[in-house]
């Protein structure tokens, strides 16, 4: 469903991605690991359409469309979802209004009727259970004053509501204690199915104990330098990233 070819991108004149190649098929979970500053979050941002990044080379095809030509909202409506590493606090916008606006704009795009208030609330309640999210958060301003765990749960809750085809989880494990991590991972696992793809961007192997990947890729200096299965993640956990750097230096 997603084909990335030789993707290169820069920000403020600095080249971050130097040629990423990746193919994600429906039903697959890909983990992207790598040391700090390797370009993991940049890759996630470029796929979601963050405008500060300038794509200088390469192609990204998503379900037969040129993803790079699409506005962020068009990508979302076609099924791309980015769970933010740092979800944005928006004072004055209630979570419930935000969610209703988003869902209904997506539904209209998909040729569905907007949900009425009753069906919407029913759906919300159902999906909130999935990430054990407290209902009191709904009427509060979006992410404002939420704890780190609440923010991340809110991301997965939004993912559940919007039913994306491709989910990109950007460091979703950062700042989570083990209980919150399990809840979030459990939510993601329940949403996994044969027709959806997931990209898990993470620095640590820990999250991959709960969200078992089909493939693990190591991103270093803006490109994927090593790919393998979940065992690669364990190896990275045991040995750190230095051996990869050494291997590359030797090559």
């Amino acid at each position: 469903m997603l084909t990335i070819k030789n993707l290169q991108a820069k920000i403020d004149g600095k080249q971050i991605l130097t040629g990423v190649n990746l193919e994600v098929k429906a039903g697959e979970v890909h983990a992207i690991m790598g040391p700090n500053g390797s370009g993991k979050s940049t890759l996630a941002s470029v796929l979601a359409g963050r405008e500060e990044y300038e794509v200088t080379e390469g192609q990204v095809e998503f379900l037969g469309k040129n993803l790079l030509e699409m506005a962020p909202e068009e990508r979302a409506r076609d099924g791309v979802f980015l769970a933010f590493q740092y979800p944005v606090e928006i004072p004055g916008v209630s979570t419930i209004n935000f969610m209703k606006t988003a869902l209904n704009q997506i539904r209209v795009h998909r040729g569905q009727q907007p949900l009425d208030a009753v069906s919407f609330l029913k759906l919300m309640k159902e999906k909130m259970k999935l990430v054990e999210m407290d209902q009191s958060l709904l009427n509060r301003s979006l992410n404002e004053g939420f704890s780190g765990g609440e923010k991340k749960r809110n991301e997965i809750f939004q993912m559940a509501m919007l039913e994306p085809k491709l989910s990109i989880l950007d460091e979703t494990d950062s700042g989570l204690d083990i209980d919150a991590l399990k809840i979030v991972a459990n939510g993601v696992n329940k949403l996994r199915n044969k027709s959806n793809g997931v990209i898990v961007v993470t620095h640590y192997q820990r999250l991959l104990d709960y969200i078992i990947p089909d493939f693990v890729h190591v991103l270093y200096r803006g490109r994927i330098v090593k790919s393998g299965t979940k065992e690669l993640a364990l190896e990275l956990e045991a040995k750190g990233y230095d051996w990869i750097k050494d291997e590359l230096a030797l090559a």
Partner: protein
Amino acid sequence: MNVSVNESNISSEIAQLIEKDLVLDIPGSSLRKEALEIFKRLGLPANKAEEYKDTPIARLLQKNFSFQSPSVRSTADPASFLIPSLEANVIVFINGHYSKENSRIISPDSEIAISSLADALAADDPVVLKHFAKHADFKVDALTAWNTAAWNEGLFLHIRKNQVTKPIIIHHIQDAVAGEVVTVSRNLLVVDGGSKTTLIEKFDSCGQANHFSNHVTEVVVAENAEANFYSIQNDNGNRYQYNLTQFYQLNNSRVNTYSFTLNGKMIRNNLQLLLDGEGIESHMFGLYLLDKDSLADNHTVVDHRKANSFSNELYKGIMDGNSKGVFNGKIYVRPNAQKTNAFQANRNILLTDKATVNTKPQLEIWADDVKCSHGCTTGQLDEEAMFYLRTRGISKDTARAMVLYAFAGEILDNVNHPELKHYLDQLVSERLHKNF
């Protein structure tokens, strides 16, 4: 004084007009004459005048007004400017003339005494004699002097002791369909001890000719009384206006002011609160949403004269197009005003490169045991918030409206009258193209 020829021309032209209309044998005419002399001496503020440096009012009036056309009667139907759901005393002025058929008083005289200011002066009403032109200082501001010399219609609103009244809404409608309109109007509101009232001044206009209003309201809030004051300015792009709202507060009184500026060509609002007592609480909220080439200039003054009072001010603005916002907030804490708490904040969003805002807090504190703070911020639309919303499938336009509405919402949240809140919410939503 460094006054250009043009600007002194407009001042003397206006002075002549005032003089021509000045009737010397009516009650209060000696005060009018005194004010006229002061106006002649001061002249309209020149471009270099500190208090008007962002609003060159003399130049704008000179350029855009002839002051020659007679004040025309209007045929406009004010229905679209009214707030239908609001249960209130409704008083309508169209082009400065009281419109009896559109006005409706629902409060009994035992709660609110409403009369024309001219009648109250003629009757030597002691409350009017005590307060009229005693609070709005016409010796320092030429526009107030002009108003004091030349006001032609106005109201005296007297809230009697220990009453909780229905709101009073005064519509100031200008109809410039038939040509230029200039009005000079004046109100005095006295809220006696222990009473609670709400005064709404709503400014609307229609017509392609330029129109100007010079409007002064004095409000006296006695011991333990509460006054809520709303100014809703939603004029068309040919409206020029000067407003002074001068509050005089006594012990343990409470004032909440709400200023909404949604449209207009040139708006200058002077809002001044004199806290002449202890245990006073004053809140000032303002929201200005400007576009095209609107100019809105809010000058506020809070003057703490005595100890143990509290004031809080929050003004927020969104500037689009070529518009210009101005905020100047003065807080004075006099030597006797120990234990004063005074807070002020001004926040702005500029949506285009051509939109501007000038913001200036001015705190002058002579007492030593006080808590005061001020802060102002000016930024652009929060791109991070925009991106977040758009990644959830929300269109750029909707995301923008959501972020701006949320910014404005902080002011709406402070409106404590449910019907007004609903009405203002609609106005602001419409203005920000909110359709979700």
